[in-house]
């Protein structure tokens, strides 16, 4: 802040004496941009690839992106800047480098943090409802819809709203709007 303030006063001082309008704002902007870039670089240091082996780093990233960071729970271990996520990435890196398989590393993490760390939870008796409910809901709705359609297909024609071209003849019968409203309730 002090720097900006200083350059601002310097800037206005210059404006009074000379007319080099463009150089100083340009310099201030550049300085600000630099500061911004530098600070982002500082934040990003945690997530930057640290291993020399790009293949290993790619395997680590792939695995870390399916693990949940337990500190900031809606982020993956790959995305999170939490210190614990950095530790977990380092742990994955070391274990993969030591020749462990992806499954072994996953088992290592679940032994410590539970199935909760997995974004793709395993199927067991505790997660059965989670896995089966969407399918059951879908089947239930389809069955309901089928039953409703069968019931309606057996109703007499009188139970339905007349086709609009017939209903629009004003002289015979009641107002088409009220007819539609009452027949819309009846078949259900």
């Amino acid at each position: 802040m002090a720097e900006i303030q200083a350059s601002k006063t310097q800037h206005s001082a210059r404006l009074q004496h000379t007319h080099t309008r463009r150089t100083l704002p340009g310099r201030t902007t550049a300085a600000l941009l630099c500061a911004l870039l530098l600070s982002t670089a500082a934040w990003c240091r945690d997530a930057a690839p640290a291993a020399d082996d790009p293949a290993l780093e790619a395997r680590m990233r792939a695995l870390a992106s399916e693990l949940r960071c337990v500190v900031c729970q809606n982020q993956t271990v790959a995305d999170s800047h939490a210190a614990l996520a950095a530790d977990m990435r380092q742990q994955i890196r070391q274990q993969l480098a030591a020749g462990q398989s992806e499954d072994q590393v996953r088992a290592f993490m679940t032994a410590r943090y539970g199935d909760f760390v997995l974004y793709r939870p395993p199927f067991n008796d505790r997660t059965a409802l989670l896995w089966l409910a969407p399918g059951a809901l879908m089947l239930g709705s389809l069955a309901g819809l089928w039953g409703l359609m069968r019931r309606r297909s057996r109703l007499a024609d009188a139970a339905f709203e007349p086709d609009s071209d017939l209903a629009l003849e004003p002289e015979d019968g009641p107002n088409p709007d009220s007819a539609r409203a009452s027949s819309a309730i009846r078949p259900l």
Partner: protein
Amino acid sequence: MKKLLIPLALFLMLAAFLYVGLSRDPREVPSPLIGRQAPAFSASVLADPARRLGRDDLVGKVWVLNVWASWCGACRDEHPLLMAWSREQRVTLIGLDYKDQRAAGQAWLADGGNPYADSLFDPDGRIGLDWGVYGVPETFVIDKTGIVRFKHIGALTPAVLRERIEPLLRQLNG
């Protein structure tokens, strides 16, 4: 009448799910360690780098592991309670100084008092990782055979001590 009952039933179901779901604390990740053997460790003691303490040194007694750090704000809130509790001498209280610097940890205990029989020093958080630590402070109760019986995440409160931990200690010691 039946037409009214279906939406009502759906609403009640939704309400029940929301009631249960929203009353849970998502920060409380259930620990898979409960009922299992405590993770093995052997760490240098905070007060003395030359001395080591391992899991097997503690087999045969009920003990409590409290994870703390000098940088941890909630540990500061919890500290007076631990001090008072340690004076009652109910259990062996072991600290785990998590991702800290030795001098900072030692200074913290010198400042606020030391409720721990010993504190393990875990500068890189490797022991903490084995214990599934993700939010300091955390507290574990370990029985005589080395099985983890209880875990509390976050600062201890008098209620947790009196209602959860002390009854458990009586049961484990009895």
